[in-house]
């Protein structure tokens, strides 16, 4: 969601108690948060509950929303805390188990035909992303499409900033690989060496 639009929505929610604005807010962030929380708790029903609780809390505290520096980060963090509370209560784990994210996270992508991903190279690079491990894809999504920075992403996944940096490099390498192939790079011995990175 663009800054300006989000700012207006937050203004409407916190100052005007606008349910309509809140619904727009809900429509935009509900699916994302569900995806994120499901990755952590590995249970769709529980994830749904946690996300609804997150929105409820946000509505209750809406008067303070204007003072939040980064609303998306606040929202995700609030959701994360809900997940941790659940995990602690169930005595399943004390931390987010990043390995479990590897195994149960399932990604979906926009359909190139129907979603007007018209540029050929974008479609091609999407193929590159699909081959990345789930954790890497999640990090890429948080940075590329949810607009978080390294620090925020690291906090939301409970990993180090260095790990986030490294994963973004892995993603970038893969993009370059696919780009080179699609541009019919000549396979000389030195080129081969580069491709082995």
């Amino acid at each position, binding site marked *: 969601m663009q*800054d300006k639009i989000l700012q207006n929505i937050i*203004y409407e929610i916190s*100052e005007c*108690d606008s*349910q309509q604005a809140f*619904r727009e807010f*809900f*429509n935009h962030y*509900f*699916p994302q948060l*569900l*995806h994120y929380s499901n990755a952590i708790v590995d249970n769709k029903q529980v994830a749904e509950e946690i996300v*609804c609780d997150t*929105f*409820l809390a946000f*509505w*209750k*505290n*809406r*008067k*303070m929303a*204007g*003072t939040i*520096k*980064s609303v998306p*980060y606040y929202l995700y963090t609030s959701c994360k805390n809900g997940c941790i509370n659940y995990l602690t209560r169930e005595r399943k784990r004390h931390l987010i188990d990043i390995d479990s994210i590897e195994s149960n996270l*399932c*990604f*979906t*992508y*926009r359909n190139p035909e129907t*979603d007007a*991903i018209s*540029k050929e*190279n*974008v479609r091609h*690079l*999407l193929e590159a*992303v699909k081959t990345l491990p789930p954790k890497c*894809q999640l990090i890429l*999504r948080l*940075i*590329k*499409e949810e*607009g978080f*920075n*390294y620090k925020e992403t690291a906090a939301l996944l409970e990993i180090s900033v260095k790990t986030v*940096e490294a994963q*973004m*490099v892995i*993603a*970038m*390498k893969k*993009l*370059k690989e696919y*780009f*080179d192939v699609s*541009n019919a790079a000549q396979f000389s011995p030195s080129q081969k060496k*580069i491709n082995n*990175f």
Partner: protein
Amino acid sequence: MSIERFIELAAKKKSREINLVEQRELSRILEENPDLQLFLESADQFFETPVFSDGNFGEQGFVDQHWEQFERRTIFTETPAITPFYKQRRFSYGIIGLAASLLLLIVLKFALPKNKAELLPEKENTVSTNCGSKSKITLPDGSSVWLNADSKISYPKSFGADTREVFLMGEAYFDVAHDAGHPFIIHSGDIDVRVLGTAFNVRNYKNEKSIEVSLIRGKIELSMKGQIENKILLNPSQKLVISKTASQPDVEGKAVENEGPKNLFTLTHVNVRDSLVAETSWMENKAVFINRQLDDIMEELDRRFNTNTIFKDEDVKKYRYTIYTNDFNLKEIMEVLKLSKGFTYQLSNDEIIISK
């Protein structure tokens, strides 16, 4: 040049985490390897296009279902658990409404009331900054004030006795200690800002056409000097811009008519980008310029670095830039501006000459 290093820098760039030094390194690499530029352009396009979807989590029917459930659970009209205590009078945001009320008002003279004038020259503390410097001071009540370049703040020795009053010219960021018994009041030119424990920015430079007050958190109340009854309440992330050149009421209380309608006040929001608030970025040694003309930017830089900019070309003055930097360093900023939209400049002895 290693391709690994290029990939690292490209990753940082697309994650919006690249700093100025790294950006220069990247530009150099691209100059020497133009074929990499093609890849970067492709990556740019890719990063601008959303490719992830939420699958059936994102289907409208699915979301609608959950919204309905949510609606059932939530009592929307319930008074929020946390209600800021200041939500009482509300300023109606009609600018015309304000102008009309000013017209009807019988306005007192704009001179400082007698006792204040006596207060000023005598026992008072003054802190001022020149071009090129910033300063942080702590007031006797524990409040912090960060003074930007070319600014001056003064307060009487009796600060804190009854009220906590300061006088400001220039730009300062205030973090006011909470003390309900002693109102904190800032006088700056024609405005008075009344505070109760908040963090905000006041900008009133002599040579600028407007006064800007940006509220970060808490609450503040603004009024025009001498019109204490007409108050404007600001909420967090709101910014009030007061034009110094718009029509002012004269002594009889009628607005002086100018050519066209002029906005005396504009209520807007602070500019937030990537969690960095533009209005207070000067405090953290970062710079945020959003669609500003080069002559404006150079004025800001002159103030900050105590330099003098001379434009040899009129067109260049109007070039617009949007830049965010983590390092408010003159040489680096000039280079970034140049990279963004080119011009030539000479920097010597605190003098900057800019031409096409």
